[in-house]
């Protein structure tokens, strides 16, 4: 496919690796923010092909993974409410809540449906006027324009049976929170290419300047990732800490202005609890009061039951890049994609799932 396959070219990747080897003179630790990048890195073995001076650590950019247990519990309770159709991206169905997951709720009779787009959930609400259709709106800034459009469209259609259970998170406050931790080892960030396609790079300049950390907006194919690594390493070697774009075919400095306008119309910035990281100020989007009719959090009562995490799961440390998945005692044993203890083993973007999919055989051969 055009604009994908060119960036998987083996010769270009090798040339980049050679150029990076020539650039690097001492150890550097980079964090790739987005789970999509983590999967590419582990899948293509880029972390093992890079010179030993460069360490890649995996960031918190998996929205499914950072959705807190109490919101999974909320989704489960809403799904079990008579007359409700709960819609969600497929990734969310196996994510464990305190006592169950959406897949098990569906087996127990809840009407839980996977949709490809929040706009499909709006169409379902229109087709099923006697039901309340709730879309579990999980995602980073990348997904916010689609969810904002779903609310705006439901409003134009005059629907009274559509709402979002919002678990939206924002990247820049999470980077600030990671950098504030005394355990933080990150010297440069590969920022998330599609988040910045929507938001642009404006929010990142203050982070780069305050923490003197290079931020390179990076794509998702292997050559794109090596391009981002090369730019970040060059900044580190030259003592610069700037915001640069290594994914210019998709990202403009100003981002997508019509999409930002729709996000600002429907959502406001709110504090958000991240699974494993705790509450981070201003790190989420919530539905504005003007659109309260489309807010499932207001429409459905909260039981207030306490959320319970699996005590064996170290997702919080994995999401901060402090531990690698294989350092977890439950990895691949008590915790697998079929029977996950924590969300990073479930999501297609979770670091634990990436290691399980691509590194299990190698580990078995080595050990």
């Amino acid at each position, binding site marked *: 496919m055009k604009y994908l396959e060119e960036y998987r070219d083996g010769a*270009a990747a090798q040339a980049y690796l050679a150029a990076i080897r020539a*650039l690097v003179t001492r150890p550097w630790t980079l964090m790739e923010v987005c789970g999509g990048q983590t999967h590419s890195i582990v899948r293509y073995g880029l972390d093992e092909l890079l010179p030993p001076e460069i360490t890649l650590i995996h960031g918190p950019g998996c929205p499914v993974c950072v959705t807190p247990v109490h919101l999974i519990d909320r989704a489960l309770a809403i799904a079990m409410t008579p007359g409700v159709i709960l819609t969600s991206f497929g990734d969310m169905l196996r994510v464990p809540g305190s006592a169950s997951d959406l897949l098990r709720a569906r087996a127990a009779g809840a009407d839980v449906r996977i949709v490809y787009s929040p706009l499909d959930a709006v169409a379902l609400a229109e087709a099923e006027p006697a039901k309340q259709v709730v879309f579990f709106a999980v995602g980073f800034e*990348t997904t916010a324009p*689609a969810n904002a459009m779903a609310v705006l469209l439901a409003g134009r259609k005059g629907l009274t049976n559509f709402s979002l259970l919002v678990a939206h998170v924002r990247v820049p406050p999470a980077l600030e929170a990671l950098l504030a931790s005394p355990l933080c080892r990150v010297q440069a960030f590969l920022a998330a290419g599609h988040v910045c396609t929507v938001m642009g790079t404006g929010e990142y300049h203050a982070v780069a300047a305050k923490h003197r950390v290079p931020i390179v907006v990076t794509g998702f194919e292997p050559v794109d990732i090596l391009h981002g690594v090369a730019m970040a390493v060059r900044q580190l070697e030259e003592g610069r800490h700037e915001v640069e774009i290594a994914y210019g075919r998709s990202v403009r400095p100003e981002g997508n202005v019509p999409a930002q306008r729709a996000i600002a119309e429907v959502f406001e910035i709110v504090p958000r609890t991240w699974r494993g990281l705790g509450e981070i100020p201003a790190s989420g989007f919530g539905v504005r009061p003007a659109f309260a009719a489309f807010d499932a959090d207001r429409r459905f009562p909260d039981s207030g039951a306490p959320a319970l995490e699996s005590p064996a799961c170290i997702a919080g440390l994995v999401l901060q890049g402090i531990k690698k998945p294989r350092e977890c005692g439950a990895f691949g044993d008590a915790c697998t994609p079929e029977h996950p203890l924590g969300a990073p083993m479930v999501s297609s973007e979770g670091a634990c799932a990436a290691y399980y999919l691509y590194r299990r055989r190698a580990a078995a051969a080595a050990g």
Partner: protein
Amino acid sequence: MCLAIPGEILEIHAGDHGLRMGTVRFGGAEREVCLEYVPEAAVGAYVIVHVGVAIGTVSEEEAREVFGYLEQIQALADREDATGAGGPAAGPPA
């Protein structure tokens, strides 16, 4: 979750309530995509699509930059090698 893929706009039409919609081709597959956030994109343009919504357009010119930057840093490394100011590559193997 932030997976978004490039596709070519084949045609553009008005959807429900005037929503700007289009048919977009991804390799062999075609899909209905919301084009409301890419008002400038015409038929033949490539858009970046995430969960059924185009969130940006592909810049043809910038698409080659990843290879342009490679040439730039290769030239830089060669120059450092030539002046003897290079890193490990310039020295004898350890």
